[in-house]
């Protein structure tokens, strides 16, 4: 329970930095903190492997790529503050969404599975086996998507003159 509270606080604090910080690099590092919190949440929810992947790909890859893009594009300049009306509107939408869905969630009843999954079912081996048998399509689709994304990214980011592509 305490651990859960800490995880929630860490994540929300990181997310707050991420959305409120005008300095984009700090916002990205805030996102990193939030993602670390999410990874801890995954750990608490019983899957160390997914937590590890979250850190490896999100923190080690995605946030770093974002900072890289910021540096390459001088996007780190402070953006002009949005007009208050926009803040209000967005805040209202988000709040309304939160309240609406929160009511649904608190009112909902969730059936527990008749018998809890065995320890072995949580193992990485099991995950891998499923990924390559039952969910083979997901795996293949993901690989195709990633390949296309790489090609697309290179095609978009490439300068007109042929040069070596930045990794």
């Amino acid at each position, binding site marked *: 329970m305490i651990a859960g509270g800490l995880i929630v606080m860490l994540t929300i604090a990181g997310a707050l930095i991420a959305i409120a910080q005008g*300095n984009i*690099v*700090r916002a990205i590092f805030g996102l990193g903190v939030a993602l670390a919190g999410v990874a801890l949440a995954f750990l608490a929810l019983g899957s160390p492997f997914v937590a590890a992947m979250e850190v490896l790909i999100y923190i080690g890859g995605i946030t770093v790529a974002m900072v890289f893009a910021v*540096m*390459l594009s*001088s996007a*780190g*300049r*402070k953006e002009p503050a949005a007009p208050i009306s926009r803040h209000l509107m967005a805040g209202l939408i988000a709040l309304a969404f939160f309240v609406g869905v929160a009511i649904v969630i608190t009112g909902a009843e969730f059936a527990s599975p008749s018998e809890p999954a065995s320890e072995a079912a949580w193992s990485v081996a099991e995950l891998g086996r499923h990924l390559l048998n039952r969910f083979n399509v997901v795996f293949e689709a993901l690989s195709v998507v990633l390949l296309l994304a790489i090609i697309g990214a290179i095609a978009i980011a490439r300068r007109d003159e042929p040069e070596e592509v930045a990794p």
Partner: protein
Amino acid sequence: MRQSAGPTLERTDEADTYYLNMGPQHPSMHGVLRLLLKLRGEEIVTCEPVIGYAHRAHEKMAENRNYIMFIPNTSRVDYLSGMIYNIAFCQAIEKLCSIEVPERAEVIRIIACELNRIQSHLLWFGTFLLDLGGITPFLYCFDDREEILDILDRVTGSRLTYAYGRFGGVTMDVDQDFLVRTLAFVKRIRSRFPMYEKLVGENVIFRERCEGVGVITPEVARQYGVSGPTLRASGIGYDVRRAEPYGGYDRFDFEIPTRTAGDCMARFEVRMAEMEQSCRIIEQAVAAMPEGPIGPKKLVQRLKPPEGMFYFAVESARGHFGQYILSDGSNTPLKLKMRTPSFSNLSAMETVLEGTMVADTIAIVGSIDIVMPEIDR
């Protein structure tokens, strides 16, 4: 923009570029050179060398003292080939005032100068590798270089800033031991060349860093007055020792190594080959060492040079070193202008560095072997 955290990549007049001050305090800038680089990412858009941080007014000092009192200054202009500069000044004055130099003194001078040239090339080799990130060859070179310094120390008493030359000769005679040790050194350095070749010359990383990097075309070289090994690496076989022989160099048999590629690798090869040629000269000089006096008995102090302009050039370790003396007939030069090779070599960098990468800058500036005090004087 300054307020925002992080080093903002200052926008220059061109989009995507920013300035980087490399030097005057920077680990790889030899002495105090400042390169004002305009970069796009790591690529150099323009490069502007800024000099003058080591200016000590040697030329002005020459105007305020007798010819002989300028002798200690000469080695300090280029402290890496101090002996060559020192002797060159004496040779210039000897030619100006028609002072005879005994043959033995000439041969001693040639041995000392060639040892100094090898020493300078060795130090260049070491620091060049240091710039490229290889630390160990630097210390091996220093091991060999120490040997030369010890040998020269035996006759000159100094290790770096020699005041060995006097008008009409040298200060101290060499003994048998000096000659023996010199020959032993020649043998030793010859045995070290294959090691350097294995450790550095053949190394794939070194070759990758050097081949095709920083090409100085013969046209650019001519345009900027590039000289010395840097020029010879671009395919022009100009060497003052051969073009306008001085100090008895015409008596010896040696080659002028040239390469045509003009890149860092060519400059490396030319210098390595030059060390071998210097070894050859030394061997011949030791064999041909005549007996006799090493200079006038009494110090030649009061000179009566003819009025007028006078130019004398030698081949220093870095290239064509010229001295332009304007004399009014008194014991003090009206003007002493030094034409130093590093200065011209460095001025070519503006053209050569364009479009290269930051890491190449280090390699290229390192490969032309500049000595900042020589540029600033």
